[in-house]
């Protein structure tokens, strides 16, 4: 996976990888009542950045992620990638959902190959083999997803999203349904994977610890209709130590700010 990053015609330094410009999103419920999920969000994520979205539940983190993926359209404003407005899902992005969303009729290998085969990319076998090794799935190539634990299934999903070499990896609470122990291991292993691939990542989470262990920048969403309340830069080398004073300091600050928003959401 050590391919050089594809540069667009514009200078990568001048153009953010992902930009949201005054984005808003309103949903119409079945009853006709409107829900303003995202109020007004502007942000800019740099090439190679590991960005985490955190905020109270229902504040529109997934919605914004799906707009970056091209699954949803903003009601107002623009979402851009490499300087171009995102029009539809394209394979320059990869996604990992909380619920794995693997194809149960394909083996581990079949799932990982899915994107590569669709795009008829060369060296499929070598890439799949490398990824299987990288995410720690060796020996499970021929297994069907339902025979694997949640953690293993999520490893498959991560490999599947990276396999066709997208520029941007979108992750929607990927470790949210794993037990605490598996989650710690996944975070540690994912740091290794990310350090090898150096993709730009947007990682949605509701765990302050997870965000601070992984991200370069943590974007804190306010209560609904959301805006970006605060951006935390985490300039600590990885792997990070949760017992280190600098980690604890930033964690306390982030938690306090998040709690304020959760309180607002509650009533």
């Amino acid at each position: 996976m050590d391919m050089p990053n594809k540069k667009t015609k514009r200078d990568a330094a001048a153009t953010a990888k992902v930009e949201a410009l005054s984005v808003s999103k309103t949903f119409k419920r079945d009853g006709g009542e409107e829900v303003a999920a995202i109020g007004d969000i502007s942000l800019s994520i740099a090439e190679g950045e590991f960005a985490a979205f955190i905020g109270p539940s229902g504040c529109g983190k997934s919605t914004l992620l799906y707009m970056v993926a091209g699954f949803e359209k903003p009601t107002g404003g623009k979402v851009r990638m490499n300087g171009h407005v995102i029009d539809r899902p394209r394979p320059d992005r990869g996604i990992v959902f909380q619920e794995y969303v693997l194809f149960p009729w394909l083996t581990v290998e079949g799932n990982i190959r899915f994107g590569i085969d669709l795009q008829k990319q060369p060296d499929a076998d070598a890439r799949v083999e490398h990824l299987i090794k990288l995410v720690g799935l060796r020996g499970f190539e021929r297994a069907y997803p339902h025979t694997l634990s949640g953690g293993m299934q999520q490893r498959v999903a991560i490999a599947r999203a990276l396999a066709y070499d997208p520029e941007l990896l979108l992750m929607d609470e990927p470790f949210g349904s794993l037990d605490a122990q598996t989650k710690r291991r996944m975070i540690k292993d994912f740091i290794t994977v990310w350090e090898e691939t150096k993709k730009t990542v947007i990682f949605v989470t509701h765990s302050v610890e997870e965000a601070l262990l992984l991200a370069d920048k943590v974007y804190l969403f306010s209560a609904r209709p959301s805006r970006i309340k605060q951006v935390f830069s985490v300039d600590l080398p990885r792997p990070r130590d949760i017992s280190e004073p600098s980690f604890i300091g930033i964690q306390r600050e982030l938690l306090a700010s998040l709690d304020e928003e959760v309180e607002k959401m509650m009533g």
Partner: protein
Amino acid sequence: MSEIQIHRAGEARSPSAEFAAGFGHKALGGLRFISPILIVLALWEFSSRAGLVNAVLLPPPSAIFRNMGRLFQSDTGFWNSPLVGHIEVSLMRLLAGYGMAAVLCTALGLLMGINRRVYAFFDPIVTVIMPIPSLAWVPIVILWLGMSNATIIFVVFLTAMFPIIYNSAAGVRSISKKHLWAAELMGASRQKIFFKVLLPGAMPYVITGHILAVSLAWRALVGAEMLAGAGLGLGYMIFDARTFMDTETVYAGIMVIAVLGLLIEKGVFRPLQRFTIERWGTVRAG
């Protein structure tokens, strides 16, 4: 102490478990399946011979099997025997009616699953017609098509239609939006999404629909043949034998129907299930 007991229990189980895992498992399963049937046949044989029941209404199984043997014989060999003839006609009718339904109705069901408007149009129609017992159609179909093969095939088709349509549509609709999104993001065109996601994703339901269709169609076929068999088919054979009080032939026919029904289900659909949805872990209850 308890640890030792657990260990012993494990030891005691392992040889039999190993035995059961291989060929022995199948043989044992087969024996378990066949024994109760043999016991009932033995009781039946005894009651009939001992005169506990009317031997004309309930002839002994031995006589039924002897008669079945005769029905499988002819001057020009097994393949030209009357019973093989009836079986052949019944199976051809089943295949023709089910085959048409399989092609047309799987396609319609999938289309309903994909397209909201097609679904909105056909769903109420399917919902209203589905609960009608297919034999209720026989009189009107006889008026349309006469006492002919076409009538029987059409009734089989009608019976097989609805479970296939209903389940194929439900199969497509069961696929989560996120699966489609994931495929789309990985660069799948609409055509690729159909073949690589919708079709395999709907498969568990589609297979259920087809199993249901064939088993219902097999039942309807026999009934329709009694009413419009036109001289051929297992249903006709049974009905015709009854008018001559030839109960041995009636029972022989019933047994053949039972065995063929079982063979179709266990021999065709079970393996299909095993190689697809059981491997994928997407088996549906029921």
